[in-house]
């Protein structure tokens, strides 16, 4: 989990220092954002390669990490090349498949099962809807910041979030309880 409100202080670092320090966190962010490990890898690789080329400019930014995270978000939202062609399975299934390959080494605690189920449901969302949820609940950004990142109004952000939560059946506490009861 990355709290984007806690701004990292990065000054004068080389690209290699930045990548060494922040690549694992960027990959975690990309995995959560994309729901697909391979896509996360492609997106981060592409973004960092471009960031490397123009690192002097990026390192002059107030927060190079925020700049690169924004690049990751933009790349994900505009990505459609090989991913779209090869992504026969719904987004998210790949990570679910990975679990299956582990030979059933699951933690069967209810909370984990519910989290898994919710993760798979997240794969049914559109990219902007998913991005809004990730930015709001994983990155812990305010709607105003999310609107700025996505280049839309706060009302649009709220609309994306509302529709996404409705799809996930998380639109209200009542529905959440109902969902939990259905599973029990």
């Amino acid at each position: 989990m990355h709290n984007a409100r806690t701004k990292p202080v990065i000054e004068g670092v080389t690209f290699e220092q930045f990548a060494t320090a922040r690549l694992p966190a960027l990959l975690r962010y990309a995995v959560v954002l994309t729901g697909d490990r391979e896509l996360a890898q492609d997106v981060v690789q592409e973004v960092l390669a471009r960031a490397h080329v123009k690192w002097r400019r990026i390192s002059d930014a107030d927060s190079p990490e925020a700049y690169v995270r924004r690049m990751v978000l933009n790349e994900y939202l505009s990505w459609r090349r090989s991913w779209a062609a090869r992504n026969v399975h719904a987004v998210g299934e790949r990570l679910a498949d990975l679990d299956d390959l582990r030979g059933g080494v699951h933690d069967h605690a209810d909370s984990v099962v519910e989290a898994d189920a919710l993760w798979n449901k997240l794969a049914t969302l559109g990219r902007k809807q998913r991005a809004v949820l990730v930015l709001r609940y994983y990155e812990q950004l305010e709607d105003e910041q999310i609107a700025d990142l996505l280049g839309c109004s706060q009302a649009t952000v709220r609309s994306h979030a509302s529709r996404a939560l409705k799809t996930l059946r998380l639109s209200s506490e009542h529905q959440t309880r109902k969902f939990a009861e259905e599973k029990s």
Partner: protein
Amino acid sequence: MNDHGDQLRAAFQTRENETPDPAAVFQRVTELSRTYKRRRRGLQVTGGAVLGAGLIAGAFQLPGIIPASHNSNTSMVAPAGPGLSPAPSFSPTPSASASPKPEESPASSAEDKARDAFFDAGYGYDEAVTLAKHWKISTEDIGEAKVKAGELILAHKKLPAGVKPDPAVAESKKNEKYAEAFFNAGYDFDDAAKLADTWNLKDSYDAKVMGGKKILAGDPMPFQP
């Protein structure tokens, strides 16, 4: 945090650590950025500016990835995150700070060309591993297999071991080159978004591709980067 916020956070946290290997990702980043730099500068590249992937791989195998200290001109405080702990400091080696070479050697340029040909044809890491096994090349020297395969591709020869390129990837590589030309001309994502509107395209990626085609063809763009 409200109830559904907690549930979503839990769902994200269950999977956030299922990431690709950072060292492998960094290796590919260095390959890609070398390609981008070379294309940007023509035949001139910075031979010494890219850290050896092995060195970085070593750094990623440390228990934590946050540098504890840097030189006097550098400070970095990374945000806290689960599972992250202070790690030994990262010190660039002389190879990282070596003066850029004005031009790469012909041998290096030929290798890069072959490596590009391998990826541009739609092959990837998995095929390189298959070929490395076929040619009895250590998987630690996977780059050697990519170069050897690329040389065969450039010579219009068929690759052994039954490896097949992904046609969708090959097609996407063409578009990547256009998108690359777009970025190399100095345009960025915001420009792509504007151009997508101007050209009535579905998304900004289409704008990157169309913009790159125009740039490479020498056609005028609606605005300068």
